[in-house]
Each structure stands twice: as structure tokens, then as C-alpha cells.
């Protein structure tokens, strides 16, 4: 049983650095830092973890009180969160406590799409998968297995599948979210933005947000730095058709007509170039193609942009000058969810070009040069070389500039097959880890068609989400609070490592991801790739290689390492960019060679016709999309989404605040009923709703049927020809009262 330690003893324990002083409340775990509770009798423990409520992985301390979940607070050392977890991270115990969790392995007994399963033992379930994988390997080759992953535990399955012989790992977050951003910056600077963003926002003197809604997006680092910049008096320019939280803080809010951001960006570039407001030394020293750029944007004057964007030329000039005034500490924020209109890579690239003109890349207040900790791998045999990969699929061939697999392309290749090999599908098996692909990808019918074509669907998840209904085998992962995962060593100002360690033993019959992957490896004869005794040995080995240890990390949670390079590009430094030319490519030869505009060009997008409104979507600060809508704490804060309607539209349709309506899109798809919010915060030509609601998973009892799913209304996808991104802002809806 638990050992009570008073405050003085606690200081002694931590001060002396003795780990494992006591065994904590009932779960048989070694707890570090027993703390005296408020009432003298409370036994309090804390364990380091990093968060999995979204994928930002902020580090924190999970506290228990008398052996029960209490609270999770941010780790002060952590640069992901600066010691402050967001709304969702603070609600982390909600997922541990969720009574709707998957409790035991399940094997399908009916056709796919129905939640009809029988309970199985781990041995049965894993044997089933191992046999199927063997069959697929023998018949089609191991490359026929793809994995969708969105979560830390995915890394163990990646090791497993690489050992098996495939490397086709898909993150919907590429083609359905931030892919255009990464490719735009790759094509301009030779480096991507990556996560957490390399934006030096806390030092920015001018921040430009284009459709980026920091505040509603609560990635802690971003919000922390955003607020810090504002506190220091930074000038904020927000471009958004919606009066977002950020817009309400802005010095300049540009209520742009949806779909015209690129015109505005080109007009800004035009002003900055023709008023000679750009950083001349930086442009001369580090960029290539300035003259071509100058020529290309010659006609993109503010007067040209005015009728397109509805933003007056005066405001365009004034804001351009404001940006220039603060250069190079002006940050044109690259955003995150960029897949809007299909010209997204070009639009984001226009922002990247603007950043280059202002000299903000590699400069204080613009973008810093990130570093991440190098962690050695446990020595394992070499992976087999796959004979083919996503690059050989139709989508892989079509979008050669895409650096990651495209979710929709994988779906298509699961249905249509390989170029030249049309008689059979490219993929036969899917692993889906922590990623409800029926909610995170539009055009659900394509995903379902693919799911029906597969001979093996394995879903590893914590909750019985929609996708579990399509699995052949469902494996209950533990929540992140019940397991170790690999060391976090993401990029940042400081190379940091962070530890996730379990607060509790796995609940129900769930198992940690590392255990599942390793057991499966054993069954498939791939045990050599998981040669460690247990995950603690694995982690300790890696940590010791970089001068730390599991014990130390259990005490610290986060450890800062030394940087090896400067944070910014030095003054007059002869800096070489990792592009073909070694310079920032304002004019892109690569894009030109692939048949794309070397300098972004604005082209008009479709507009809604009478009675229809553009469907815009975003996020609630209380939720990580569909991932958290069943969380007992968060579903209380924000139980359902609303459709925002401008008062003018409300009058026209006779809509009342709080009434339920259905939305019908241009293709006749009708949504679940959703509450109307009559608000001035949205333009009269658009409606807005938070993404992630409208769950159709009956077993998610808190979330089921609450609100509408914006995504089912996204039947028209505007594909980015450069990298295959799936633009989702091209859907129009009308009301069904």
C-alpha cells in the first residue's frame, strides 16, 4: 500500500535524486515525487507524460490523489507548452475514465460496416492478424499493406511493418491538413515547417494570420507565443471571412471574401516590391528569381485585388507597410490546416515568398532554425527493401512532388490497383492506428469502397469510433496514461527529449501499443526487431546513449539538450539553403519543370449560387476534432456544434437562434440536425461549423448523434495538383428547416 510522505521528506527525496522512494496507490507502480495533499491524509503522486489528446505532444505531470486520477498539468521545462496544457490536455484523465472505451480484442463476425464482433483473447486476435499478414505476404507481397497512423503509439507498428516489408505509412494530416504548407516551404526554402511549428512568434513584432485561428486552435505553444507577442505589443493582422478569436484581437481584421486569399497575398507582394519595402540585403544575399517575381506580380496591384477580395486598396497598402515596418520580425504565419481550394501549395507559397521579401526566415521574430535531439536506435537487423511503394501507385505517379503518401491515393489504390496492373488492387491490408479515417478524410464513400476491398483491416484504438465498425480485428490500445511510448524528440528552439510513462496499469483488457506490436512481431517471427526485454529496457538504453536514463527522465519528464547550431541566420552569414540553387526560390524552377506556375497566380474559385452558402469549418477550443467529443469532461464544456448564420441570412430563412436545422449540400447530401447560432461573426455568404461532431458511432454514448458532421457535406474536393491535397472549402450548403 501507499506510503505517506510529508512535504519535508518529499523535498529530501527529490533533492537527493533518489528515484523510486515509494510504491504508489494500489497500481503497483513506482511513483516519483510523493507530495503531501491538502488534507493531511491524501497521498499524491505524479508521473511524467506527454499528451495525446491532440498530436502536439505537450509534456506534463499526471497527478493522482489516493490512487485515483486527479489532474494533469504542464511541465515547466517543456517548450511545447511552457508548463501550460490546453483545455484538452488538462482533460486527459477523461479518456482514461471514459466508460465507452474498447475493453478487449474483438474479431468481426458479420460483414464490414457493422459493429458485430465477438470478444477474443489477445492470442486469438493476434494469431488471426499474423496468419492474414502471412497470407497477404505470400500472395501479394508485403508492400500490399499500408498503415494509417496518427498518434505516438504508431511508431511501434511502423517498426513492425517495416520489418514485415512495407513502408507505406499514411497520415491523413498530410493530404487533408498541412501537406500544402510543407511542400510550399520545401519548394521555397528547401525545408518544411514541421510540427511544432518553427515560427518564432513570441518574438514577432507583426503577425499575419491567414485563416489561421490561433486561440480556437489551442496548440499550447502557439497560443502561449501568440499571447506573449500581443502582450509585447505586436501588431496583428488577421485575414479571415469569419470574426475569429484571433480577428477580435487584431489591429487589422481583413474580412476577406472566401477563396481570394491568394489575390490578397499577391497584392501585398506587389506593394512590398514596388514600394521597395522589402529587405534588400536579404533578398540579394539569399534569394533567387526576384526579377521574375517582380515581373510576375506587376499587375497584382491593390486596385486589382480590391474587387476580388473586397478588401480596399488602402487597407492592403496600409497592412503591407505595417508588415514592412516591423521586418524582419514579421511573421506571415504558414497556418496549419491549408487544404482549402486546391491551389493551396501556391497560396502558402505566396506567404513563404512574402516572408522571404521581409527577410523573416531564419530571423528573430520570423522563423528560427529548429533542432531536435538525435536519439540512437536500438540495434536491430536491417529492414527488408520493399519492391514497390506508394510512389508506384497512380496517385504516387501523378503527384511526384508529394513527399508523403496521399490518403485519397491510398484509398484509390486499394480499389483500382496499380498502373499497368489494373486487374488487382495495390493494397490488400490496412493497419489503422489511433486515427478515425472515416472522420478525418472527406468523401467517405471512397474510403468505404476501399475498406470493402481489403482482405485485412486492423484497427488499434482506445475508443469504439466509426472506423472500428469496419475492422476485421479491433485491438484495444491503452490510453496514453497507461503506457510508455518512444521518447519524444521533436524539433524546437531547444533540442528536448520527453518521457511518457504510465500513471496506471492498463485498464480493462487493453494493452500498450508497444506490447501489441511486439507480440504481433513474435507471432510473425519478427521478434529480432523487438529484441529488448521490455520497453523500460529499450527506453533506458536509448536514454543512456545520450547521457540520460529512464530514472532521470522519470524525475524530470523533459530534458533540455544543448543546441549545436545558432538559432538564427547570422548577420551577413553565407547561409546555404537546402534547395537546388542553395537559395530561397522566389521563382521555382522545380515547379516550372513539373508544369506548375513558378510564381503563384491567382485563379478564381467557384462561388455559391442563390440560396447556397459556402461551408466553412474550424475547431472548438474544447476539442481535438472528433478525437475528444466523447471525453466526459470536454463533452460537458462543448457537447455539440452549431451552424453559424449571419443575421441577414437568418431573417431571410426565418431561422431562430437555437433552433435545429439540417444542411443540404450542392450534391443533395443532407446533414444531421444542427443547432443554429445567429451571429455577426460570420459573413452573409458563408456558414460555419466546428468540425468533428455528428458522430455515427453508437457506442460513443456521449457523442453519438450530437451536432452535424461538416465532412459528410464535403463531397466536392478541390485537389491540389502539386501534392494531391484535398481542398475542402469548395462545398456549398443550403438550409432544410
Amino acid at each position, binding site marked *: 500500500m501507499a506510503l505517506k510522505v510529508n512535504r519535508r521528506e518529499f523535498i529530501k527525496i527529490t533533492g537527493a535524486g533518489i528515484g523510486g522512494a515509494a510504491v504508489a496507490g494500489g497500481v503497483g507502480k513506482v511513483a516519483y515525487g510523493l507530495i503531501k495533499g*491538502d488534507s493531511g491524509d491524501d497521498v499524491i503522486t505524479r508521473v511524467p507524460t506527454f499528451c495525446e489528446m491532440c498530436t502536439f505532444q505537450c509534456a506534463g505531470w499526471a497527478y493522482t490523489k489516493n490512487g485515483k486520477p486527479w489532474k494533469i498539468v504542464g511541465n515547466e521545462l517543456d517548450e511545447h507548452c511552457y508548463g501550460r496544457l490546453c483545455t484538452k490536455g*488538462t482533460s486527459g484523465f477523461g479518456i482514461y475514465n471514459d466508460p465507452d472505451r474498447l475493453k478487449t480484442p474483438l474479431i468481426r463476425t458479420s460483414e464490414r460496416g457493422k459493429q458485430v464482433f465477438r470478444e477474443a483473447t489477445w492470442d486469438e486476435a493476434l494469431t488471426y492478424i499474423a496468419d492474414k499478414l502471412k497470407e497477404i505476404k505470400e500472395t501479394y507481397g508485403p508492400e500490399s499493406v499500408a498503415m494509417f497512423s496518427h498518434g505516438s503509439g504508431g511508431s511501434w507498428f511502423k517498426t513492425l511493418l517495416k520489418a514485415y516489408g512495407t513502408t507505406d505509412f499514411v497520415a491523413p494530416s498530410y493530404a487533408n491538413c498541412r501537406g500544402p504548407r510543407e511542400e510550399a516551404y520545401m519548394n521555397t526554402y528547401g525545408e518544411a515547417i514541421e510540427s511544432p511549428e518553427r515560427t518564432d512568434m513570441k518574438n514577432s513584432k507583426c503577425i499575419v494570420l491567414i485563416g489561421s485561428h490561433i486561440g480556437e486552435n489551442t496548440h499550447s505553444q502557439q497560443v502561449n507565443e501568440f499571447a506573449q507577442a500581443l502582450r509585447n505589443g505586436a501588431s496583428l493582422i488577421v485575414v479571415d471571412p469569419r470574426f475569429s478569436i484571433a480577428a477580435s484581437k487584431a489591429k487589422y481584421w481583413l474580412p476577406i471574401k472566401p477563396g481570394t486569399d491568394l489575390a490578397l497575398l499577391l497584392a501585398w507582394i506587389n506593394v512590398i516590391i514596388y514600394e521597395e519595402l522589402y529587405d534588400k540585403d536579404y533578398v540579394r544575399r539569399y534569394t533567387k528569381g526576384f526579377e521574375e517575381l517582380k515581373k510576375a506580380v506587376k499587375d497584382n496591384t491593390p486596385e486589382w485585388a480590391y474587387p476580388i477580395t473586397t478588401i480596399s486598396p488602402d487597407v492592403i497598402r496600409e497592412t503591407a507597410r505595417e508588415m514592412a515596418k516591423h521586418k524582419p520580425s514579421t511573421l506571415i504565419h504558414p497556418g496549419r490546416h491549408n487544404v482549402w481550394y486546391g491551389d493551396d501549395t501556391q497560396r502558402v507559397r505566396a506567404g513563404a515568398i512574402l516572408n522571404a521579401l521581409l527577410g523573416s526566415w531564419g530571423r528573430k521574430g520570423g522563423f528560427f532554425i529548429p533542432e531536435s535531439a538525435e536519439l540512437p536506435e536500438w540495434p536491430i537487423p536491417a529492414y527488408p527493401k520493399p519492391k514497390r511503394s506508394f510512389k508506384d501507385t497512380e496517385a504516387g505517379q501523378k503527384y511526384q512532388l508529394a513527399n508523403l503518401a496521399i490518403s485519397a491515393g491510398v484509398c484509390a489504390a486499394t480499389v483500382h490497383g496499380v498502373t499497368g496492373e489494373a486487374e488487382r488492387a495495390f493494397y490488400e491490408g490496412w493497419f489503422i492506428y489511433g486515427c478515425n479515417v472515416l472522420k478525418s478524410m472527406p468523401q467517405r464513400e471512397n474510403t468505404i469502397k476501399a475498406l470493402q476491398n481489403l482482405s485485412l483491416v486492423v484497427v488499434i484504438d482506445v475508443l469504439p469510433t466509426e472506423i472500428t465498425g469496419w475492422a476485421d480485428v479491433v485491438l484495444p490500445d491503452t490510453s496514453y496514461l497507461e503506457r510508455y511510448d518512444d521518447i519524444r524528440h521533436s524539433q524546437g528552439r531547444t533540442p528536448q527529449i520527453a518521457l511518457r510513462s504510465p500513471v496506471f496499469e492498463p485498464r480493462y483488457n487493453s494493452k500498450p501499443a508497444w506490447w501489441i506490436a511486439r507480440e504481433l512481431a513474435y507471432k510473425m517471427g519478427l521478434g529480432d526487431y523487438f529484441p529488448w526485454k521490455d520497453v523500460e529496457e529499450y527506453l533506458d538504453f536509448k536514454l543512456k546513449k545520450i547521457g540520460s536514463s529512464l530514472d532521470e527522465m522519470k524525475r524530470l519528464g523533459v530534458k533540455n539538450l544543448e543546441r549545436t547550431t545558432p538559432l538564427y541566420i547570422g548577420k551577413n552569414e553565407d547561409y546555404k539553403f537546402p534547395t537546388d540553387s542553395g537559395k530561397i526560390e522566389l521563382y521555382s524552377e522545380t515547379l516550372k519543370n513539373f508544369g506548375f506556375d513558378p510564381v503563384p497566380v491567382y485563379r478564381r474559385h467557384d462561388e455559391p449560387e442563390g440560396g447556397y452558402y459556402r461551408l466553412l469549418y474550424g475547431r472548438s477550443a474544447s476539442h481535438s476534432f472528433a478525437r475528444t467529443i466523447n471525453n466526459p469532461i470536454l463533452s460537458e464544456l462543448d457537447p455539440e456544434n452549431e451552424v453559424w448564420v449571419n443575421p441577414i441570412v437568418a431573417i431571410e430563412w426565418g431561422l431562430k437562434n437555437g433552433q435545429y436545422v439540417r444542411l443540404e449540400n450542392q450534391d443533395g447530401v443532407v446533414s444531421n440536425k444542427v443547432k443554429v447560432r445567429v451571429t455577426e461573426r460570420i459573413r452573409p455568404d458563408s456558414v460555419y461549423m466546428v468540425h468533428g461532431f455528428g458522430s455515427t458511432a453508437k457506442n460513443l454514448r456521449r457523442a453519438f448523434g450530437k451536432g452535424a458532421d461538416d465532412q459528410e457535406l464535403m463531397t466536392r474536393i478541390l485537389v491540389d495538383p502539386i501534392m494531391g491535397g484535398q481542398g475542402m472549402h469548395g462545398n456549398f450548403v443550403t438550409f432544410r428547416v
Partner: protein
Amino acid sequence: MDNKIKYAMVIDTKLCVGCGACVVACKTENEVPEGRSRVWVVEEVSGVYPKLSMEIRSERCNHCTNAPCVSACPTGASHYHKSSENLVLVDSKKCTGCKACMAACPYDARFTMPEGYVTKCTFCLHRIEKGENPACMSVCPARAIHFGDLNDSNSEVSVLLKSRKFKVLQPEAGTQPNVYYLV
């Protein structure tokens, strides 16, 4: 009165993004049961698109200097903490659950626990006694929440109120609230 502390919270509406982290941090720290909340977030929008303004506020008990809940309580369960001129607490051992205090509070900051007694924000007294900040303040990603003693003219909250424009909620109620909003 002179040597007593006047606890005040100063919340910067210009920085608050309305994320609700304060709501959850309070809920977990104080083990507030389902369906209840000591802290909540309100947004007020005024104007006509696109000429708009919005104020976002994290709200809670105002720990009024002239607290109507304390006056309304028939048993003395609602009371001021001995060391403070305005820290309003509820003694669950004296509370009958008559809810007169709830009816008296113009901010609707109070609620009943499943056990029956009335409760509300305590400014995290258990934390401030240990020299820590209230949980809502410690979690705020925008660092929009400040806390301290208004009777100390050098405290952060005093300095903020001297240097910035501020308002309180429902001043007309005459309760002399001590949660201040920088505007």
C-alpha cells in the same frame, strides 16, 4: 480591516482567447463534479459585420467586498475568510442548502454539490496558502489571469489596475466585486 488581504483577480480580456483551459484546470484541481463548474467563459459580440468587437471573459465568483451571498446566508455558512476582507468561502458543515446565497448572487457563481451543500470558487485557497497561484491562472496559456492583494499597492494586480483600463461585472449591483477585467 487594514492588515487584511484584499484578494483580487485581474483578467486581461485583450489576451484571453476563451479556450476554457481555466474551466478544466479548476474542475480537475478542485474535483468539481459533473454538471458543475466554478469557472466559465463568456463571449460578448457587438456590432454589425464587419464592424465588430468581441470581449471574452473567464468568469467566476467575484469575491465581493459587499457580498450579497454572505448577507443572505441564514446560518453563517457563507462567510469571509478570517485573513481577508473579501475572500468568500462556504462552510459545508453549516450550509443547509437553502440556496438563498445562490438566489442572491448576481453572477450565478454558486451551485450545489451532489452532497447537497453549496460551493463555488475559493480562489484556490488551498493553493494560495502554499504560495501557489490559483489553478486557472497557472494553466492560462495566454497568461491573461493575474492574482494578488489589492491592499498591497505594489502587487501585480494593483499595478495593473493603476496602469490599465478595467471594468467589473454588474457594478450597479453594489457588490464591489474583486474580479477585474482589463479592457
